């Protein structure tokens, strides 16, 4: 069920009341109930895929226990290999089987060889990219002896299936989340209220920013051949905000919901469009995924140690795999490749860790230099987003070709009965609002808290998209 749906509006309070009232002070009861609620939440999408998540849970639970009981290195490697093979195999089959078959057929077709292999009608289980990575982090950390394996299958089951973050992250680490299920939860009013604030802010980003931008993005990208330069550029900008509002909105709702139950999830977005270079962008965007790849792929490959050639190789592998993780399409791989190309100059010049602190700390407005750096980084990421959004590589190339061939910056009336610039006021206001709250987790703090809440309530009700609401983008991953 979607977070912005009537079903979730009913599901959440019922789950909350049962959790805190019926199972009060009963950790086992609370965990068991959360597991049940999480399976109901997931099964609401498609009950047939519950078996997959249960299978992934059982495999990694028993692999973890076996790792704890085995000291022999070869056995431990074998067990880790089993977990990796199972989870990546699951992901590979459901997500990439048809992609590989179709790419294989296309590759042979380019040299005139016709292949007669058929693809399967495979439905992608929601959240599979997220929970497989989450369970893998557990087995890898147990293998590395960073974490003791758990003997409590219910706790582990909840860790894997915890409904706030099950379908689109944040991808939690076992070292961080699993121990929370073993601790007694005492209702913390401040934590719960901050959870409500995050949910409200997440809903605003999703329903007002993301879904409104989506209306323009869909018509512009699907009809790019009829669009002028201004519309195409705006389409790319709107998509940048659509995906940001959609994904960071979901993460905020997930984190806020988890807080209602006494859990602390990791922050997943930290105002990425205020990044001053690409390296900083990746420290602010989808933090749970980028750190996962850093810890479980980049560092084991050697990271930034070793020769320059090795460093470049590692960067390319990480970004290409990250792109591929997002979807079974060459567009995502190219998107990852573009980011690799943008990142490499920073790495080679040793400037990839130049910006690690707060942006313009102590300043109200950015300096001109910082502003230009932010704008340039935004332009580069928006350029890459075109590949991410386009239906195919040909469409992406066609999109760019059209931008540079028409040079028509006039107002364009779109088939959705709106002008191309209409969304700019909302997007610009949103950017300014976020800038002045860039050091806060959410804007509902401080003196004007209730005024802001009222304003967001008005905006959510008037500008939110209800009749034509879009599914969260990252559900397709």
């Amino acid at each position, binding site marked *: 069920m979607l977070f912005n749906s009537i079903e979730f509006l009913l599901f959440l309070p019922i789950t909350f009341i049962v959790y*805190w009232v019926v199972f009060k002070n009963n950790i086992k009861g609370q965990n068991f109930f959360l597991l049940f609620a999480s399976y109901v939440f997931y099964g609401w999408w498609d009950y047939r895929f519950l078996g997959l998540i249960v299978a992934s849970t059982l495999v990694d639970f028993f692999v973890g226990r076996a790792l704890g009981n085995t000291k022999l290195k070869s056995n431990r490697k074998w067990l880790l290999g089993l977990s990796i093979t199972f989870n990546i195999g699951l992901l590979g089959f459901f997500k990439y089987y048809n992609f590989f078959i179709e790419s294989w057929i296309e590759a042979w077709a380019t040299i005139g060889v016709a292949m007669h292999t058929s693809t399967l009608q495979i439905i992608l289980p929601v959240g599979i990219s997220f929970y497989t990575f989450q369970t893998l982090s557990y087995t890898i950390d147990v293998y590395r002896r960073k974490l003791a394996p758990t003997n409590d299958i219910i706790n582990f089951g909840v860790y894997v299936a915890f409904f706030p973050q099950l379908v689109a992250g944040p991808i939690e680490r076992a070292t961080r989340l699993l121990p929370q299920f073993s601790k007694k939860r005492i*209702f913390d*009013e401040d934590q*719960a*209220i901050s959870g*409500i604030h995050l949910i409200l802010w997440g809903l605003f980003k999703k329903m007002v920013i993301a879904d409104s931008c989506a209306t323009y993005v869909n018509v512009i990208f699907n009809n790019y051949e009829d669009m002028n330069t201004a519309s195409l550029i705006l389409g790319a900008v709107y998509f940048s905000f659509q995906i940001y509002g959609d994904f960071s909105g979901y993460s905020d709702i997930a984190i806020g919901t988890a807080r209602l139950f006494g859990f602390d999830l990791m922050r997943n977005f930290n105002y990425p469009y205020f990044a001053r270079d690409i390296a900083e962008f990746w420290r602010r965007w989808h933090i749970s995924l980028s750190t996962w790849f850093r810890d479980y792929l980049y560092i084991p490959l050697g990271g930034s140690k070793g020769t320059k050639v090795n460093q470049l190789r590692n960067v390319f592998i990480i970004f290409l795999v990250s792109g591929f993780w997002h979807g079974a399409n060459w567009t995502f791989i190219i998107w990852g490749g573009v980011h690799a190309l943008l990142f490499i100059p920073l790495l080679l010049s040793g400037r990839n860790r130049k910006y690690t602190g707060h942006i313009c700390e102590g300043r109200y407005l950015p300096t001109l230099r910082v502003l230009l750096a932010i704008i340039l980084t935004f332009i580069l990421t928006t350029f890459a987003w075109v590949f991410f959004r386009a239906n195919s590589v040909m469409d992406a190339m066609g999109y760019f070709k059209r931008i540079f061939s028409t040079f028509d910056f006039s107002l364009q009336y779109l088939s959705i009965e*709106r002008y191309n610039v209409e969304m700019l006021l909302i997007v610009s206001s949103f950017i300014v609002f976020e800038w002045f709250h860039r050091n806060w987790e959410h804007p509902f703090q401080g003196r004007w808290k209730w005024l802001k*809440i*009222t304003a967001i*309530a*008005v905006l959510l*009700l*008037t*500008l*939110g*998209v*209800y*009749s*034509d609401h879009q599914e969260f983008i990252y559900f397709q991953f």
Partner: protein
Amino acid sequence: MKRFIRYLITLVLLFVSVMFVLDTIYSYAFQHGVPRSKFQSILQLENQHFDYAFLGSSRTESHIDCEIITRITGKSCVNLGIHAGTIEDSYVLMKLLISNGVSIDNAFFQLDDNYSKKGLSANFKARLLTYTNNKTVRKELLKDPNNQIFRMVPFYKYLKNDHVIGFREVFNTLVGNTPKTSMKPEIRPLVGQSLTVHTEFPKKLPQSNAALTNLKQLFASQKSKLYFFAAPYCDRLKNRTTYFSSLKQEFPGLFDFTTLYDEQPSFYFDCGHLNFTGAKDYSEVFAFKLLSLGSKKK
């Protein structure tokens, strides 16, 4: 927990209050602002009499030029066709017009594949919801128990139909922006020429349509005459002949114009609609039909 519950209640009350205020503003804007839909324009008709009224969907809205009808027949005419309108839409519209003091001598209802459609069309219903303070509207809407929620929850109707009666529409209404195309109860001409087919008739005619029965009874109670007609369709349309043969059996007095322009494809905007040139010719044909109707009565 108490502080959290109090906080939640405050938040819910805040949202409900905002919804009440917004509902009042939106409703006032739609009922008193510049009409931006055919529905709103039609509802502004009060205490008027028309000799001829044409009801139906876009095949009435874009086909009947009342200026031509009036010029040829010398009678007053009004085009009450609404894009994507259903029979139920026309029935409710007529009820509202009657309550506004509008009287009609002869009504002509366009009958075709709308015979198989039930209920209110989505856009018409959305527009109707902005008038829930109107007794007639409330009575019609509440025939469907699913519509109770629109009465009970303030502003919910605007959320559910934001693509029709959302913020953009309210904003444009409040600042007095008139839409690009005329929303007056007159012809809405179509420009262009093609024979593209967008629909298909079912093989079998549905058994009945309750809204049509209600419409007949409504006109009978007003002592107005109700006639049915079928607008032109191009000959590419699948099952056209069989469907309208069945319809004519069900409605023997049906004015059948379906094959009128089989030899004139240039009159079509698409297979189900005439362009302005075709509509003008069609209006003339219809007007002469009305004249012959009038002379038969004598």
